């Protein structure tokens, strides 16, 4: 689904729109307003972190000033400081994920599609990633479509949740509403309840 929204794949049936634009009919327009972070995304091993951000920023503006602003944002979001001068091949998984998140958010897209942004990360990196996503949504007004198997993470981060089971939405609403609906203390329990009854 996220790959369809990101214009990578075509839907076999049905349609999808982002802010009123059809993803199949006008993929070029969609690519201008979204930013996609795949679950297993990688970065160019032989570029430095800074070069990577610079390379990516270049596609979103022709203005040097705006590109510099985006890179500054990227540097801030990644929190990698001087490690950004090193080649990406030397980065840990967590560092790479922070760099990729910075790439996805630095241009302030209308919609950031983040697939399992903290999957496989240690506590420290996972905390940083969650914190940056939350801050960015609150401060910059960016809409984030986040997918995760970690229900506690979803409960902590999301304003609106859709629980999916085998490709079908089984519950939708604010986390509190879903928890109330299933009489659960947290979203993980709600999911278990929803799938039991679903």
């Amino acid at each position: 689904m996220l790959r369809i929204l990101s214009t990578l794949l075509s839907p076999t049936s049905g349609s999808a729109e982002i802010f009123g634009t059809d993803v199949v009919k006008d993929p070029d327009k969609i690519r201008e307003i979204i930013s996609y972070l795949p679950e297993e995304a990688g970065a160019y091993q032989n570029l430095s972190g800074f070069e990577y951000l610079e390379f990516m920023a270049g596609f979103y503006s022709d203005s040097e000033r705006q590109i510099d602003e985006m890179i500054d944002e990227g540097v801030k979001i990644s929190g990698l400081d001087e490690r950004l001068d090193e080649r990406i091949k030397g980065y840990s998984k967590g560092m790479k994920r922070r760099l990729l998140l910075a790439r996805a958010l630095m241009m302030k897209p209308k919609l950031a599609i983040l697939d399992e942004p903290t999957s496989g990360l240690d506590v420290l990196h996972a905390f940083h990633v969650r914190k940056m996503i939350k801050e960015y949504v609150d401060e910059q007004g960016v809409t984030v479509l986040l997918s995760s198997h970690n229900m506690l993470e979803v409960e902590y981060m999301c304003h609106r949740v859709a629980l999916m089971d085998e490709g079908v939405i089984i519950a939708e609403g604010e986390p509190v509403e879903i928890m109330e609906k299933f009489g659960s203390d947290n979203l993980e329990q709600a999911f278990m309840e929803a799938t039991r009854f679903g």
Partner: protein
Amino acid sequence: MGDLWPLVVKEIKELIRDPKILLGVILMPLILFPLMGSAINISQKSVMQAMISASFAVYNEDEGPVVEALLDYLHRNNTVITIEAASIEEAVSIFLETNATTLLHIREGYSQNVSEGRKANMKVYANLKSLTVAETGSTDSVNRLLNVYNYYLALSKIEDLLSETGDTSDPTAVRSPISVSYASIIKGNVLEVAPSAIFGLIMSQSIMLPIMVMVMLMFAIQMAATSIAIEKEQKTLETLMTLPVGRMTILSGKLAGSIVISVAGAIAYMIGFSYYMTSALSFSPEMTSMNVGDVGLGLQPLGVLLLGVNIFFTLVSGLALAISLATFTDNVRSAQSLTGFLVIPVMIPAIILMFSDLHMLPPTVRWVLLAIPFTHSILASKAAFLGNYTVAVGSIAYIAVFTVVVLYIAARIFSTERIITARFTSLSLRDLFRGKKERRSQTWRSHRNR
């Protein structure tokens, strides 16, 4: 251009910073070929030295007066071991204990045969101890001495015969009544040079050009395949495809980046190869004595232009072919294995045309070769070099058509989700070219029928 440039720069950085590519494509040819040339040069020089300094043994069974002149001649300026023995068998066993590599056996009756105008027979034995090249050429020094002696002996006999009959003919003209000199006609110009002496020209248009085209193409194919496979292996392709940049721009960036690196690799290869040829052949000065410039040949401006256009189309077609193939792989290793098959249509024409010309080949082979696009790259290069511009343009037209077809296929792959989803296990050419709408409706039908 705005989005293309960063993509090209990124491609070049990624490829050039990869140690495997830097070492294998650029540094290795610059180091390996000169080393190989030096090694061949050293071994050839030592062979030559061994041949020059080789001593030889003489076993003489003749006791007549004429053989003395031959023995005097052989002993002059040479290290000759005289073997005293009762039979040739004994002489051979003594010879085997010496350092000499060659034994000259002068048979009994030599003097008498020469004096009476009959052929005098001799035999040369070579002792092949370690079966090296030097040993197989060890009889050369004795042969050379005997040939010179033979020539002057013949002249002296002719002179005697002529003076007996009162003939005033030139003895050298009697011995060799016909004198042949050679000239070469190239592009309609008569050059007072034997064709065998135009080594540089033959080397450059028959061997160096096919090698250059072949090497450059192979580099380009490997670069492009690696570039796509790296994107897939490192999971960067998906991100790249969601950026607000045209798919054709991404494809062009990949092509341009790979062209830059492969041209750099080809230049490094040619520099290394020239050093190799120069140092490997330097032991034999006559082989490098003449080059293209010496015989007034060389690429004219139109030839340079056609050569450039030809190389451009050849590279783009090779790259597009490699990119199309590499799309169906998941990692660098399988991409390189798969594109390894492209060696066949690239190498076969190059090797055949290195040693033969198209019109010399049987018609079937000729037509098969002409059907291979990369044959035309070599034909066009040769034709541009020799000024046959019509042939060059024809070949370029063929490769250009092929390039357009391959580029179309690559563009099709890049513009659909095939670039993400394509695998050899699910590859169907029909599927590749089928319209998106038709494909979707078929999938929907199969879904509904389940």
